[in-house]
């Protein structure tokens, strides 16, 4: 049984600032990490493997050559092998072109994938589109925002507890299927030094545009329907109103009157 996990390398978002003049992200000195939601997805794959040891976990990432470090992290945390999808021709890909490319990679490199796991979104773009698009392109069922996953005893279906607005629901899908992972109650793991060393001996396959059955106008910028026109930070929040220098009862009245006048309470 094979699980493909699609991962993305992202800037460590807590440190990212926007250049106020150009409106672009300042990436200098910002570390690149494995997208946290991708790490949670990998965590589910590793748990499924612990219950079903014959599972093979294959990590796939599309990105510049340095995205290999995100794949190495996957190999340290339990992936069995990895595929780096990297080519200048992929540059500028929007979510559609990315999904099309990744789907083509899966068809080519892991045609017998039973389950595709993705993070619910990447913390840089926050689009949450690539996973569902891959499922559509490959024509398989998809379940989003999973926090618990298990295979049914005959291993023909995946059962997923997923987050919904009002709480959780449990869904099952016939395999092959695509599931995205939310954070849930994951306590992040940490590889051992033995894991770090053995990750560097695991198979790491390189895939370029020439390896895929896609035409050039389906790749990168040419294959993209959308383009980012501008990136800018949201306007800073205005400071709220402070009720000061009043007796507690008077202050409470003041706040209650404000809440009523603004329609927050009846």
């Amino acid at each position, binding site marked *: 049984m094979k699980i493909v996990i699609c991962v993305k390398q992202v800037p460590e978002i807590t440190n990212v600032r926007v250049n106020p003049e150009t409106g672009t992200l300042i990436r200098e000195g910002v570390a690149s990490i494995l997208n946290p939601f991708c790490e949670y997805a990998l965590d589910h794959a590793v748990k499924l493997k612990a219950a079903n040891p014959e599972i093979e976990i294959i990590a796939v990432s599309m990105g510049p050559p340095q995205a290999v470090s995100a794949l190495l992290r996957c190999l340290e945390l339990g992936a069995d092998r990895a595929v780096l999808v990297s080519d200048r021709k992929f540059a500028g890909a929007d979510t559609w072109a990315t999904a099309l490319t990744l789907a083509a990679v899966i068809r080519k490199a892991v045609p017998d994938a039973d389950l595709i796991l993705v993070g619910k979104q990447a913390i840089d773009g926050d689009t949450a589109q690539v996973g569902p698009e891959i499922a559509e392109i490959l024509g398989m069922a998809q379940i989003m925002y999973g926090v618990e996953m298990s295979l049914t005893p005959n291993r023909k279906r995946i059962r997923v507890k997923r987050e919904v607005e009002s709480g959780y629901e449990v869904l099952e899908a016939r395999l092959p299927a695509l599931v995205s992972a939310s954070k849930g109650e994951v306590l*992040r793991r940490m590889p*051992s*030094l033995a894991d*770090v*060393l053995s990750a560097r001996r695991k198979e790491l396959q390189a895939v370029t545009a020439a390896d895929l059955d896609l035409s050039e106008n389906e790749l990168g910028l040419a294959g993209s329907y959308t383009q980012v026109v501008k990136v800018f930070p949201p306007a800073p929040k205005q400071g709220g109103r402070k009720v000061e220098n009043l007796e507690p009862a008077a202050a409470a009245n003041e706040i209650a009157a404000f809440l009523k006048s603004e329609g927050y309470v009846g």
Partner: protein
Amino acid sequence: MYEIKSHITEAAEFEKIRRVDGFRNITAEFPAYLTDESKFSCQPFDLLFFPKSEAELSAVMGEMARRGIKVTIAGARTGLVGGCVPNQGALVSLENLDRVLALYYDNPSTEWRLKAQCAVSLRAIAAQLAAKSIPDIERCADGLTMLEMDRFRQDPDSYFYPPDPTEMSASLGGTVATNASGARTFRYGPTRDWVRAIRVMLANGEFLDLPRGKYFASPGGEFTVTDTAGNDYPVRIPTYRSPRTKNTAGFFSAPHMDLVDLFIGSEGAFGVITEVTVALLKHTPKISVVQFLASDDDAIALVQALRVDPRIRLDFLEMYSGTAIDLLRDRQRRDAKTVGTPPIPASARSALFFELDFDPTAREVAMEALDAAVRSCGASLADSWAAYEGRELERLKNFRHILPETINATIAERKKQHPGLHKLGTDLAVPDERLADMWAVYQDALAGAGLEWAAFGHIGNNHVHINIMPRDMADLQKALGLYQMFAEKAVAFGGSVSAEHGIGKLKAKFLKTMFSPAEIEEMRAVKRALDPNWLLNPGNIFEE
């Protein structure tokens, strides 16, 4: 050369220097200046000064000398032995001498150097070097200094200042005055090893400029300082030899010693360090590892195995005793999110924490020697945590900080029942070959006394902090007795009573455990020669 002349700078007008008069005002307006990280209580003092320049400092020192008022010097007040807590007279806070002065490449030694005033913090140095941006230099108008800065920026490598005492808000001058050390002292030595020059103001308000490698003790063990009025101050260096361990007890002494070394670690006994030049080191990527083991004895054996193999080069080597692991496990059970690491393996009964060079992009990483050492102690690299990305390193750092924090919280809780209670943390170091002996002393005594304790810290330097957590006042009395016994044993093993915290006012009595009355008299003679009226830092090192 063993003769050196002091010189003067123009002194500022004394009355214009910012100061606070009277203990009542100081207490009301500047309570933070009444103590330091030791929480040791001060005695009433009358004056608090904030000089902004060497000229102002010189005016303060000159005036205090004329009036015969004793002066305590404060840096960032991060010390643990009350060194900057006044017991009389005046307190001079150096906090405004906080400019980075230069960054330059020293051709003869082929190293980058940083020159800064004494109050620049280690955190500021670390951040500015990492960003390759030093605002003080970028603002200065000096062409040559800016040129060097450009050269530094264009250097493809990055650089750091290796000494790493846990408290990064410490001031550079303070760390030189105390010869501060930290985890990375294991590989890079203490502050002393990185100081290339200092500028010191003596008690009489005159300066000494002391580059390393210029002034050495005469064959007879003497230096002579001559002031601008032509008076000679002959200094005879002590005849004792400093222990072969990390040490901050007593003045440094060695045959033909460099005069700069007399001032480093002297806890301000001879002068005020106003400027410091330090060497920087090229940064290389590292991996941090917490290696779990089945017992403390296995951990001690692994320390020895790691130290003897020249193929293994660790930056630091720290220990968590079995009792410390139990505390952390308990904390994890109650509050897994705060600890932020996966569960500690059930089989772990001790752990070592170390760091070594590691290129994360390399496809082949050889660690056979480390693997063999770990296996020889009955453990496996599979029973470890490893981190090399910034945020992952932070998780391990947090894991390390959570232990003292947990101990302090436990004591704070018990203090509610027994207000006189406090924790007892040792600061003893012994030479490499006595590590197992010292560990046996600790284990036997602590087990026999039925005390609650945890050990952690710089085991690579045979300098592990034993933290005793007394449950009541009877426990505290037992613990105090053990501390004295431990100190005597450490000295008998050729070690130090104060490996890194210094003597200050809190540990003056331990100096007598380590040095004979004659040796302490030799130290007093040096103090007398350089500060004849005992004006500087009264109560430090020598009990009054």
